[in-house]
Every structure is written in structure tokens, then in C-alpha cells.
């Protein structure tokens, strides 16, 4: 059985994260992951079609059907990394599947706690009956590593969405504090899942705040997986495209695989 990297790259047209224009940089992400997976004997699976209409389930939530998706596609798996397509992996990134100790893994988050704490508090109050999670165990859902013992959690996540979709959509529209990420964090703690957090270098979000999103691509010397989010002056994701293109070309050359 192989380990699997699972990504989404679905063209929804229109506006939003999976609109045609915002997807432009994803080709660099996918190409970097293809090469890393090949060198580490890992299978890459890219979901490029919706499972359900967006009106029925928002796209970010659909990825939590990943076990069903893999099984429906006859893919045997050991561990699965669910990773966002706004990331680029360094070719020398250590094999994080060997670091999991068989646990669910996220990555140490460190960014705007104004956003995180408002998100936790508001979801807590309106969707989780006041349940609070420890903020220092918060993880970005751009990197979530699981195995088949976490099927129950993922079923809980999709069931939770289906039972509370109106509330969740309303919360998202009111507070703009993310879609799946905070609820998934909360459910992970409600279910008392044994969670391991890998160091920040395995999902380097909000790099600008850490002063490493620099013209010399300093971040490529510091860590392994770069998530190009929270980028200032990023109208229509043009800056994301530029950063990801430059990073990819530095690490892998101009050819896309």
C-alpha cells in the first residue's frame, strides 16, 4: 500500500478560491507535488470534479469524503496527506509520512490570532454550544495527514456539515472567518483525536508576517512546504501567481510536469 497525497483542483469559473483565475498558480503546486511524490514513492491524487453541487455542499467541505473517493477509485492507501493547491513543496522535503507516529498530523500554526480567536469564539458560540479548543493546537487545513483510523472523524465532519449547513453558511457569510478549517479543528478536539503537530516548516503559512516572503525567496532556505496565503496587495491573486511561479522555477526549473 502506498501513501497518498490528495489535492483538489476544480475549475468552478466565476469568483472564489477555485475560480479560473485564482486557479492559475495551482499548476505550479501540482507539478511540484508530482515530482516530490515520484521521488518518495507516493501516489498523487487530484480531485478535479465536484462530488456534489456547490449549493448542496461547499467545495472545501467535499474533500472530507476523501476516504470514499479513494476507495471508489480503487486506490489502496496507507496514510493520506490532504494538502492545498496553493502550496509548493521543496524537492528535498523529508518524507513527513515517516514522522506521523500513526497519528493524525497538522502543522504548528502561527499567524493572525485576531482572525483565529474570533473564528474559534464565534464558531464555538454559534455552532458548538460553547465548546472551546486549545488555540495552541490550532492547525491549518492546508496540511492534514490521516490514515484509515480517521474515517470516523471525517464521517463526523461531513455529517456535521450536512446537519448544520445553514448555520455554517450563515456564520461564514456573517463573520468571514473561514469555511471548514475552524469547525474541523473543533471536531478533531471534540472527538479527542490524538493529534500530532509537525513543525511550522511543513506548512509555512502567512510567511509575510514572519518576514520570510522576500524577493530572494528566503523561505526556500528555511523550510519545506510553502503556503502562499495572507499575501498583501494581492488583487485577483496576481501576487500568488508570481510568488508561486518564481518559487517553482527556482526549485524545479521552468518545465511543468
Amino acid at each position, binding site marked *: 500500500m502506498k501513501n497518498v497525497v490528495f489535492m483538489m483542483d476544480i475549475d468552478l469559473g466565476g469568483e472564489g478560491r477555485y475560480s479560473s483565475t485564482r486557479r492559475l498558480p495551482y499548476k505550479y503546486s501540482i507539478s511540484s507535488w508530482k515530482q516530490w511524490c515520484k521521488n518518495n514513492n507516493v501516489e498523487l491524487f487530484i480531485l478535479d470534479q465536484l462530488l456534489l453541487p456547490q449549493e448542496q455542499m461547499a467545495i472545501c467541505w467535499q474533500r472530507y469524503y476523501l476516504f470514499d473517493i479513494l476507495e471508489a477509485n480503487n486506490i489502496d492507501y496507507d496514510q493520506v496527506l490532504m494538502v492545498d493547491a496553493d502550496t509548493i513543496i521543496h524537492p528535498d522535503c523529508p518524507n513527513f509520512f515517516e514522522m506521523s507516529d500513526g497519528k493524525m498530523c497538522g502543522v504548528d500554526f502561527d499567524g493572525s490570532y485576531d*482572525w483565529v480567536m474570533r473564528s474559534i469564539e464565534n464558531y464555538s458560540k454559534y455552532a458548538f454550544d460553547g465548546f472551546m479548543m486549545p488555540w495552541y493546537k490550532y492547525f491549518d487545513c492546508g496540511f492534514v495527514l490521516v490514515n484509515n483510523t480517521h474515517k470516523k472523524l471525517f464521517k463526523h465532519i461531513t455529517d456535521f456539515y450536512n446537519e448544520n449547513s445553514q448555520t455554517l453558511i450563515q456564520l461564514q457569510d456573517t463573520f468571514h472567518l473561514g469555511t471548514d478549517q475552524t469547525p474541523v479543528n473543533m471536531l478533531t478536539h471534540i472527538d479527542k483525536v490524538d493529534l500530532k503537530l509537525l513543525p511550522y516548516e511543513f506548512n509555512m503559512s502567512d510567511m509575510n508576517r514572519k518576514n520570510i516572503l522576500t524577493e530572494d525567496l528566503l523561505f526556500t532556505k528555511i523550510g519545506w512546504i510553502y503556503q502562499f496565503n495572507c499575501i498583501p496587495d494581492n488583487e485577483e491573486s496576481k501576487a500568488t501567481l508570481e510568488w508561486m511561479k518564481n518559487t517553482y522555477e527556482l526549485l524545479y526549473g521552468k518545465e511543468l510536469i
Partner: protein
Amino acid sequence: MKNIVYRIIHNNIQGYDTSFANYTWDIWCKNNNCTLITRTIPTYCEGVKTVFSYLENNNIEYDKIFIIDATAIVKWDCPNIFNLVDDRLVGWRDMGDLKSIYNRVQKQDLTKYINYGSIIINSKHRDIIHNIPDTQSIHEFENELNKAITNIEINLDISRDFNLNHMIKYDWLSHNWQDGNDKTPFFIKYAYIWRMDTMDKDQYNNFVGQLQQLKAKYVI
């Protein structure tokens, strides 16, 4: 033997009004049966390196020693941190400004690079601490400290609410402005030890001035 909280007032924080910080630690130590030591000494490095000799020369018995920058403030209901640690040296990773750290250390493993201003040690660490080369600046000291502990096992598992740093840059002074009437800043609600050595003197004094209203919360 008592556990010790050992605060260092050094030249880099001249002009910082650390009296409120001292007040908070004084109450906390009394409530947690710890001994509070506050030393004024030219360099942070010297303060750390001489901790064992200072305690022994003054006939102060000790078990574990929490060495902390004197600008740090402890929250009134902070649990006894000494109950959470074992015999390993305790530190907290610093991820606030990775560029600055990388430019200083480069080849070290940044995932294990700890911040200078908050460590817990015990007598097992006497030689390591004593043999740190003399340095003048905080950054030099931090580098040397990290080099000195490269080959020992470090406890990095104590949660970050016991060492909240870079509070402005990471928006910890904010509150839930979207919902309800609670204007309590997040750092007060969700962290126990507030590290403020990344604030300049005016920012710090102004900030601590506002915290004075919390004084009544600190009761023995």
C-alpha cells in the same frame, strides 16, 4: 527545596517600567510557594550564567529555576508551571521573525531554536549554563545558548500560552470585535505569561500602564 522564579533586569531594558511585572510575579510566587528573585545586572548573559553561584552564595535552596526576562508579566490565575515540567531544560520555540533568526544562525535547526527570555533549568544544567561564552547583546546570547544546548534533550512541549511573545505582530491585543460586548483582549483571555521584550520602551510603558487596572485581580 523551593522552585525559583529568577527575573533579570538588564541594560537592554533600561527605562522599561517593570514594577507591575514584578508585582504580578510576587503575588504568583506567594500563591505557588515559589521564591522570587529579581536581579539587576548589566547583561542578560551574565544574569543567566551566574544564576547558580548567586543562589548558592546567598544560601538559597532551589529545585527548578524559571529564568525570565523582567518585562514578562504573569496572569493572576496562571497554573504552577513547575508542576508541568520534568528534568529536561524547558524552552519555547521562537517563530516570530524567522528572517532575523535565520540570518543570525543559518545552519542550526530552526525547529529547535528557543527564545532566550524564558527557560526552566535545574542543577543538571549547571555546567551547560556556566560555560556559555560571555556575550553583550541579547541576540548573541540567544545564539550561544542554543549552541550550548544542541546536544541535550529539550522540552519544547509546554504550550505556548505559557510564553506568549510578539503580541502586537500576531494581533494578540485584539478582541472579538464582531460579536458580543466582551472587549477583553485575547492575550488576557487565552495566555498565562505575556512576554513583551519585542515592544520598545514607550510601547511597553504605555501598555503596562493600561494593565494596572488588573491589579485587583492579583490576590494572595
